């Protein structure tokens, strides 16, 4: 059954290598159809009676798309209507080679049982293997390989060839249009490249992109640089390219003007060319939005609004995009701007993300889509078009509607939010659940301890609890008890995989997207009062100076005596009349926490600030009715101190045990240039900020106060927060710098919130192995798998934060919607040439105010490039953030 055939390939890795590989041809690859009687396939994938109603083919048929169809029309193939498709291995490989996102989507479709997609391994089938001919390119060979079985194609020549060999072939458009009763599918057709020429005249707006071979040569010789394109949020004519250097020497290059941006879209991987020094410019401080009316064929008059700052010190390296190495397009959410011409089918689409340009789409249902949130995918950006071309993918619902908006921001931030699948739920423990004899045997029984939890009000996923008691020798015993989630989520099962993918629980206003199913998060794992729960405990023996004498970790059983809110706990501590066990325990904890905090600050830990608000929600409509900034009580910091201490202790323990594969968290120290805005801001009030070390920064921040302006210090801290780098998870075997800058700790990890963070679950597992309470499994010890897990967690974590912020912003808007005009005090954070960015502390709201807005009186303000920031402006301006 094996037929051996060797073939020769040439690849380039420095020089030309001749690679000889074997290629076995088989005759046991089945066709996958239920109809077929000759194949001995055990589990056919394709249905016996594939029904797709079509004018062209009135009989049952299977579809067989070629590579270009898969690449460009993936949206159609993903539609549940399209089923019974044969994907050839040749096609799959070419797709993999050309576009990773499409490859992933088609693979998902293949795995979906409902879709009946079958992959035919034609390269290895004896009858369908095609030998590469002398002098034939790989592409042509692939075409021929596909032809031999054949097809749904867009390529004219390919179609002719196919018809020559007497096979049935249709153009994709023809076929889709022939489907009865599914007009919305037509809109989803991506524009094929040869249709685009007739959109606008022949006026070319953009310089040509260089071919990949020249870009690669250029990068090698150093004339071009490679980097990630990041559009500016504030100015659509400006962007930076982040050049990936080796370690320290990563730089940013500024790009200005539509021509120089040259059709790059946010997050694309681009090649750029640096201008000579004379042409370097400073980043413009103009805020520009692409607000022009829906000009379908308007002439492009972009007079480039270059700033003419003469000061050479602020000049940045400037360049232009010469080519695009890899597009990073994804589907975008946004709104449709209907064309002014009634019957037009081409419309512009404005994405929700301001960094994405507007997209031109073709649709016949514009009137129904206006006012709706829709998803659009980009197909291409020809040289003669001002905007990229795209196609409609999905309608999410009415704009402004709360559910739709939440959906939009979840999609935009790539937060997985589908309900948990049945397979995932099947791994949950069976109810009623109770503590078994076995648990009692292996766990330390801590039910007699007076444990209590302190959390924000309304919290149902309680993952930490504390206790403190006096020991006979005069020392104190302090315990942090964390929900033992890893007891319920066993490595490798569907529940574990789902949680690993979600990475974190996302808290939106009035909504929580759980990482683990609710039964665990709000019931079995939640350390509620007066029920017996499994916990992972970290117990210290401390003296009264909060010095740790002894650390112990154990899996335990606890029975929390009370779940308090921060305010309740504070009341108990302050109320001298209360002297029960819980209160004394809390007082002991509070005393130690204060010492711990002082020690930490002594070491140079930073206290930063960011404006945070809470909404009071209407219980019926879930509309926000009031909002207030979060205030911090002593008890907040009490809980925080012990969590930090537990995290640090655990980090040390797992690193000692697993130096190669411990999951840790680090916070790199920011490069000095990050502090520029902070130093300038302080200068405006004649204060000095030292940024040499975390300690110096913390000290100078403490001293930077103004008598007549108490909020100033908080403002500085807000700015300092913006100077910081992101803290990230990493695997200890892949990195050497472990330092946590913000906490001034040499090592740190996350251990205390396993209900809402997956990283903590991994840390729990590592710690359980370290105290021999559990066994390892392969993936836990594999540092590459750990590292890729860390990447996912970091990404999810970042996205969750953005989604949280976006949700707050949206609810703030809802709140103001019915408020009319309010007068509030605001502070200027940044000054741009034609706008200021303003923070209103009471609402934690940040907004851009343009000077030349027609319906608003111009605030009297002189632009001064030096004193950027925080001239405290006592202008009471009217709020119309909705414009």
């Amino acid at each position: 059954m094996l037929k051996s055939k060797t073939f020769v390939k040439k690849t380039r890795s420095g020089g030309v290598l001749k690679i000889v590989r074997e290629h076995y041809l088989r005759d046991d690859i089945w066709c996958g159809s239920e109809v077929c009687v000759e194949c001995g396939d055990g589990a056919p994938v394709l249905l016996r009676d594939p029904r797709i109603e079509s004018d062209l083919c009135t009989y049952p048929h299977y579809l067989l798309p070629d590579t270009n169809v898969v690449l460009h029309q993936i949206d159609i193939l993903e539609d549940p209507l399209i089923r019974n498709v044969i994907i050839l291995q040749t096609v799959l490989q070419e797709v993999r080679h050309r576009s990773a996102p499409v490859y992933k989507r088609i693979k998902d479709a293949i795995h979906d049982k409902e879709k009946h997609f079958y992959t035919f391994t034609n390269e290895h089938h004896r009858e369908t293997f095609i030998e590469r001919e002398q002098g034939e390119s790989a592409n042509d060979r692939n075409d021929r390989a596909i032809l031999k079985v054949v097809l749904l194609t867009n390529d004219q020549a390919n179609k002719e060839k196919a018809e020559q060999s007497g096979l049935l072939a249709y153009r994709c458009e023809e076929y889709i249009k022939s489907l009865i009763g599914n007009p919305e599918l037509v809109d989803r057709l991506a524009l094929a490249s040869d249709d685009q020429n007739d959109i606008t005249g022949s006026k070319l707006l953009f310089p040509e992109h260089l071919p990949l071979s020249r870009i690669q040569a250029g990068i090698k010789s150093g004339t071009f640089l490679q980097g990630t394109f990041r559009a500016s949020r504030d100015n659509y004519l400006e962007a930076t390219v982040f050049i990936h250097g080796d370690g320290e020497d990563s730089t940013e290059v500024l790009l200005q003007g539509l021509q120089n941006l040259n059709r790059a879209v946010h997050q694309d991987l681009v090649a750029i060319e640096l201008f000579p020094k004379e042409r370097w410019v400073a980043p413009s401080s103009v805020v520009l939005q692409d607000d022009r009316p829906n000009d379908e064929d308007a002439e492009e008059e972009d007079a480039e609004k270059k700033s003419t700052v003469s000061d050479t010190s602020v000049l940045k390296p400037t360049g232009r995009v010469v080519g695009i190495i890899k597009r990073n397009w994804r589907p975008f959410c946004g709104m449709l701007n209907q064309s002014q011409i009634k019957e037009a089918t081409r419309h512009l689409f404005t994405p929700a993300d301001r960094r994405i340009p507007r997209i031109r789409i073709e649709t016949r249902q514009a009137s129904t889509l206006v006012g709706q949130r829709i998803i659009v995918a980009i197909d291409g950006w020809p040289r003669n078009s001002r905007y990229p071309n795209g196609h409609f993918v999905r309608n999410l619902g009415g704009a402004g509607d709360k559910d739709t908006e939440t959906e939009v921001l979840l999609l935009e931030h790539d937060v997985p939010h589908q309900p948990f699948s049945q397979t995932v739920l099947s791994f949950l423990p069976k109810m009623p659940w109770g503590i078994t004899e076995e648990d009692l045997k292996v766990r330390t029984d801590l039910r007699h301890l007076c444990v209590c939890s302190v959390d924000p009000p309304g919290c149902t996923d309680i993952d930490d609890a504390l206790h403190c008691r006096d020991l006979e020798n005069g020392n104190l015993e302090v315990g942090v008890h964390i929900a033992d989630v890893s007891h319920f989520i066993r490595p490798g099962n569907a529940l574990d995989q789902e949680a690993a993918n979600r990475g974190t629980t996302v808290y939106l206003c009035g909504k929580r997207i759980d990482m683990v199913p609710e039964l665990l998060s709000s019931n079995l794992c939640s350390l509620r009062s007066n029920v017996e729960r499994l916990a992972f405990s970290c117990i210290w023996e401390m003296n009264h100076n909060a010095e740790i004498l002894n650390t112990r970790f154990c899996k335990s059983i606890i029975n929390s005596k009370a779940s308090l809110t921060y305010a309740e706990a504070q009341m108990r501590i302050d109320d001298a009349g209360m002297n029960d066990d819980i209160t004394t325990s809390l007082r002991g904890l509070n005393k130690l926490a204060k010492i711990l905090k002082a020690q930490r600050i002594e070491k140079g830990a930073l206290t930063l600030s960011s404006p945070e608000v809470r909404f009071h929600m209407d219980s019926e409509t879930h509309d926000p009715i009031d909002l207030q900034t979060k205030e911090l009580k002593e008890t907040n910091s009490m809980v925080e101190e012990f969590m930090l201490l537990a995290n640090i202790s655990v980090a040390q323990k797992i690193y000692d045990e697993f130096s190669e594969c411990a999951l840790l968290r680090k916070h790199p120290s920011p490069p000095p240039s990050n502090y520029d805005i902070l130093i300038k801001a302080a200068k405006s009030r004649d204060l000095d900020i030292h940024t040499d070390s975390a300690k110096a920064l913390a000290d100078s921040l403490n001293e930077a106060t103004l008598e007549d302006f108490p909020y100033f210090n908080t403002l500085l801290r807000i700015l300092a927060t913006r100077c910081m780098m992101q803290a990230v998870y990493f695997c200890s075997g892949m990195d050497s710098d472990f330092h946590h800058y913000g906490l001034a700790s040499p090592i740190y990890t996350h251990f205390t919130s396993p209900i809402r963070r997956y990283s903590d679950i991994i840390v729990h597992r590592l710690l359980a192995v370290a105290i021999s309470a559990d066994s390892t499994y392969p993936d836990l010890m594999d540092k590459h798998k750990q590292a890729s897990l860390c990447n996912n967690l970091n990404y999810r974590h970042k996205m969750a934060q953005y989604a949280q912020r976006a949700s707050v912003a949206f609810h703030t808007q809802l709140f103001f919607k019915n408020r009319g005009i309010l007068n509030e005090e605001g502070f200027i954070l940044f000054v741009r040439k034609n706008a200021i960015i303003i923070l209103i502390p009471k609402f934690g709201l940040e907004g851009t105010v343009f000077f030349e807005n027609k319906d608003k009186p111009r605030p009297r303000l002189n632009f001064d490039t030096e004193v950027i920031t925080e001239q405290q402006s006592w202008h009471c301006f009217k709020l119309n953030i909705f414009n």
Partner: protein
Amino acid sequence: MAGLELLSDQGYRLDGRRAAELRKLQARMGVFAQADGSAYLEQGNTKALAVVYGPHEVRGSRSRTLHDRAVINCQYSMATFSTAERKRRPHGDRKSSEMSLHLKQTFEAAVLTQLYPRSQIDIYVKILQSDGGNYSACVNAATLALVDAGIPMRDYVCACTAGFVEDTPLADLCHAEESGGGTTLALALLPRSESIALVQMDARLHQDHLDPLMEAAMTACKGLSKVLDSVVRQHLQEVSVQTRE
């Protein structure tokens, strides 16, 4: 770009084999008349030539002589043209010496050396073309050469590699699979007694995965032994026909 997809979702490997399938094995015995025993073996694109001299008196320094059994002397080398880039030193480098040592250990376990005290058996193996699994091709070729030389052995020594990709053990790796990351385990087995002559693994592997991997390698070795056996039988038949004439 991500690395190669070593195992497709449909369960096919890069060259079209399934996970447990071996490469095509072809072999010939008695290819050289001067030597006491010789064999040529192809395992896929890996081609090896093995030559056996002896048993004969110990050459060189007398001190190496063992009084109760024979000394086995192995030398491994790779032809300069065996890899994609031309090799500078065909033998004597660190890798080759290590491989020689491994071969020596393998055959000391299999050859009944106590039958030939104070003598020496030389085994020379050369890789003519390398496409993964050099060690196993050498062992298999040398086994055939020893059989050809008529040196008594406990059993055939069959060697095969196995790797681990996406939780599936793959048998008999080719070069692309060996260099594509992951673990490679080389196993030399005396199939009838299931005793292991040599097992070698350089990379890290979780304990839970070791058993399936060993299992896969053992099965592969047993499969190989059948092929080797048929080669020997066919060779004997040809030789006996020739002598009868």
